[in-house]
């Protein structure tokens, strides 16, 4: 029912290679979204043989639900080691759900410069989009029942867990 992570990483790597080749992107900057996205981004960067250091984004300061749920208790600093002007960014997250996290991540990325392109890669793409955002590189597509949630646990070993959540829980991956 719940897929294993390593085959999904294989799938993502293959798609990413193909994508980068057909779009003529030589040396992307791989950027992961805290915390699951960073784990996936680390694997992807290694498998793609990208030399440039990994970027990490914590989008807490850019969330659109701050006025509802307040400050996230553990905000880690974002690290984007390089100037993004003119760069090709491979943005990585674990689960694409509503699209709000990606919206926030794009806003934050653009506060670091003007990238030439941003490509979204996710381990799992599930139903429930609330914004016009899609991933170009997808490990697995999943249709989940109402109130069902899929989460990445890690970092060692990386594994997906499926759970039923209370309606008021507003996790918005």
């Amino acid at each position, binding site marked *: 029912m719940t897929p294993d992570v390593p085959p999904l990483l294989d799938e993502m790597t293959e798609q990413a290679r193909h994508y980068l080749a057909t779009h003529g992107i030589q040396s992307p900057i791989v950027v992961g979204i805290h915390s699951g996205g960073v784990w996936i981004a680390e694997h992807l960067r290694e498998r793609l043989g990208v030399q440039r250091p990994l970027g990490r984004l914590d989008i807490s300061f850019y969330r659109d639900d*701050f006025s*509802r749920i307040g400050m996230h208790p553990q905000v880690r600093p974002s690290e*984007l080691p390089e100037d993004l002007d003119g760069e090709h960014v491979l943005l990585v997250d674990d689960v694409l759900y509503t699209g709000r996290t990606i919206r926030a991540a794009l*806003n934050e990325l653009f506060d*670091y410069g003007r990238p030439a392109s941003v490509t979204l890669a996710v381990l799992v793409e599930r139903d429930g989009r609330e914004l016009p955002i899609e991933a170009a590189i997808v490990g697995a597509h999943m249709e989940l029942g109402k109130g069902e949630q899929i989460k990445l646990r890690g970092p060692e070993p990386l594994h997906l867990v499926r759970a039923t959540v209370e309606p008021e829980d507003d996790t918005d991956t």
Partner: protein
Amino acid sequence: MNETSTPSAPPMASRLPQPGPLPHRLQLTDDGQLRHMLTIEGLNRELLTEILDTAESFANMNEKAVKKVPLLRGKTIVNLFFEASTRTRTTFELAAKRLSADVLNINIDTSSATKGESLLDTLRNLEAMHVDMFVVRHAESGAAHFIARHVAPGISVLNAGDGRHAHPTQALLDMFTIRRHKGDFTRLKVAIVGDILHSRVARSQIHALNILQTGEVRVIAPCSLLPADVDQLGVHVYNDLDAGLKDVDVIIMLRLQRERMEHAHLPSEHEYYQLFGLTSRRLQLAHPTCLVMHPGPANRGVEIESAVADGPHSVILEQVTYGISVRMAVMSMVMGAHQS
């Protein structure tokens, strides 16, 4: 602001109650989140650490092309200053602007606050403009508590210095500066030097250092500049600067408040410098990697030698920079606490 209020109202200062035991709890929500920032006293180590960690994330923002986040977009923050300030007010203002809030600066010259408007009238008028936060500086101890007790439920109050009582965000930025350079507090010896008696900064620093379990906190001052209850503050008291500086990891110099001279707390500036001025020679008594801090503005040649204030041990300008990150952290945490 309100011309119709009773002209016979007594000056606001005389009506302010002293901060009692309750304010510690006033600043937290039922589930322990920071709702106002009035005093360091009564906060726990976890919360102080959370503030410093959050400030750390904001400090990294300086690397971005756009030094701004949308966290407090649409919020209005009022800097309500009844007492002059440059550094504190500007860093609060910049912190608010980097969080995308709108900022209103209101400087109320207390001597001219005699149009008859009471502090509560001023508050009610500002509340009617739907503001979200007051940053308050006042010459009277307890002013921020008084305002926090009387504001509408959704509004947060940050104490930017009240009389001799507290200046919590200054203490937090000092802790942030120390932590960035020294890491763990438990092995540190920290000395606070100068006018402890009149210093709200020193009070807040002592509370913060003790809550963070600093190895040893020393205060160094002449007897005339120490509060009577200094023994209850959890510090080691020194009246001799050379003895007190021995092996310390951090030296925090306080501004000598010259206006106090009139009240014969001190003989002369010259004599004070001879006895309590931090000079290059005296700095050698401290640990070789000792930090020199000062909340500003420094009186060069009165409490600190210029060569020390500008020297390699000095982190005085870093304190100013970190003040912005720490104030951003406090502002976003108190605004977040109202949501739940």
